[in-house]
């Protein structure tokens, strides 16, 4: 029983350039880490586990290969926490407008 099977929505990881393959004119921290990417698609392999080398079919039907990173990836960006620095602004300006 594998982490994912053929046709599942997955995300792969690819290292595009290792640090020594990156151009020289970069800030030192950037130059010291690899240039990487993540791409989503549908698993082509019959079955695969996270960490396996796999092939996917992307959303436009192209075949790409990479390391299986995540199965059924979710969008987890959100609206954040309420910000006390913002919450009172609306009432402050309403009061100011009422006074004028």
């Amino acid at each position: 029983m594998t982490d994912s099977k053929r046709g599942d929505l997955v995300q792969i990881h690819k290292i595009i350039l290792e640090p020594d393959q990156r151009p020289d004119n970069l800030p030192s921290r950037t130059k010291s880490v690899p240039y990487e990417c993540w791409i989503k698609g549908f698993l082509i392999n019959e079955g695969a586990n996270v960490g396996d080398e796999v092939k996917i079919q992307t959303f436009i039907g192209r075949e790409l290969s990479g390391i299986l990173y995540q199965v059924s990836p979710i969008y987890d960006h959100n609206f954040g926490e309420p910000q006390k620095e913002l919450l009172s602004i609306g009432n402050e300006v309403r009061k100011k407008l009422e006074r004028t």
Partner: protein
Amino acid sequence: MDNSYSAVMSRKKDILKRATGIDYDKLEISPIAFDYEGLMNSCEYSWEDVQRILQETGVGNTPLVELKNLTELVRSISPPGKGARIFVKDEAANPSGSFKDRRAALSIFHAEKLGYKGVVAASSGNYGAAVASQAAKRALKAIILQEVYDSRKVGQPEILEKTRACEAYGAEVWQLTVGPELFYIMLRVLEETDFFSASLYVPTSLRGIETLGYELAQQTFQQEGRFPDMVVVTHAGGGNVTGTARGLKKAGSHDTVVVGVSVDLRGLHMASDLDFNRKSFPTGHTGFGIPFLKWPDRTDVPRNCARGLRYLDRYVLISQGEVFYTTELLAKLEGMERGPAGNTSLAGAISLARELDRDQILLVQETEYTAAGKLPSSQLTFAKENGIEVRRGNPKESVPGKTIVIPESVDQIEVEDFDIEKIRYSYIENAIKMTEGYVATREDILFLAEDSKTTFDYVRETVESLNIKTAN
């Protein structure tokens, strides 16, 4: 095929020629000058064609909204007789939620007409979503390349939302880590796919924005009987300023003052893995704004159609906190919930309106949609998680990358003028430095005068003084 960084970069001219359909060599006049209007007209669409093509996919003709409550608030803190009427062009009403649809619509139409099967765009912002949306409408495939993550795989929430939007429109999205190698990946993908390069800086992208400037002028004239006195435009790569100014002129508005606004992120390095997630605005900021004015030809194509310095009358900066405060004002006072990045020019306008007379008209050129990842609460939560201090106070105390200071009151919103004359000088200096050994001709000086919005005599004197410098 050698796909190393240097090998691919050495092939860029041929790759881009295939991917844009433009022969830039033909437009070169000298090492300094090129035929700018020739480039802008090279896509052979008439003004009527452009308007029709945009209308076909539901782009443009967005509402012009007068912000009466905001105007009243600004007047309450302005000297007597001051406080212009503030209007905003609600570009969020476009199909994918921003004015970038105008940049994508004509380019994607053009790609389809030329027979390309797909398009590629390198964009972490609204432009990527616009390209994906227009590609869906024209049944073309889309690949969007985004700079999203730092090396900890922490993603800027704005950009994560753009990934979602692009994928919702059916695009293949590459989420990349920080680095200018975005251009290298773009070249590789273009070479592999033979898709069209939906660059931000080609004529079809710029001419779409002209419709925005044109509408601004026309709508104001229809509603108010005159053209706007001032138009405030968010400035990054220069396309926004260029297209808007050209469109205003096309509509007959020659006296409108065009002011560019950028979020002040000076001190942060754009290629730094460490600085990447220490900012709350991925675009519309000084990291693009200043370099693109000083040297526009730094893009993915040999000659940039976006030439901000040609068209800007004034360039001002605003802090991140002031834009977040403004976003709150727009929602609470005007009932319009819009993305913060798209309120950069509105924040600038609040300050600038105080300089103008009450009967003058100040127009804010855009808004953008909002969603998870974009709201001020998303961005400030993210900022705090990344070690940024957020507080109420005097926004002048903000330090990009360290503190975000949200104004205590609206009268603290104040633009900082950036010395645009210094930029004009820098641009001329760059043009001479880039062509060391070549002696500028009279035609070159005329070109530089137009490109820097100065005069023949000023350029000639500047070039002479620089040549004297280098001769020593």
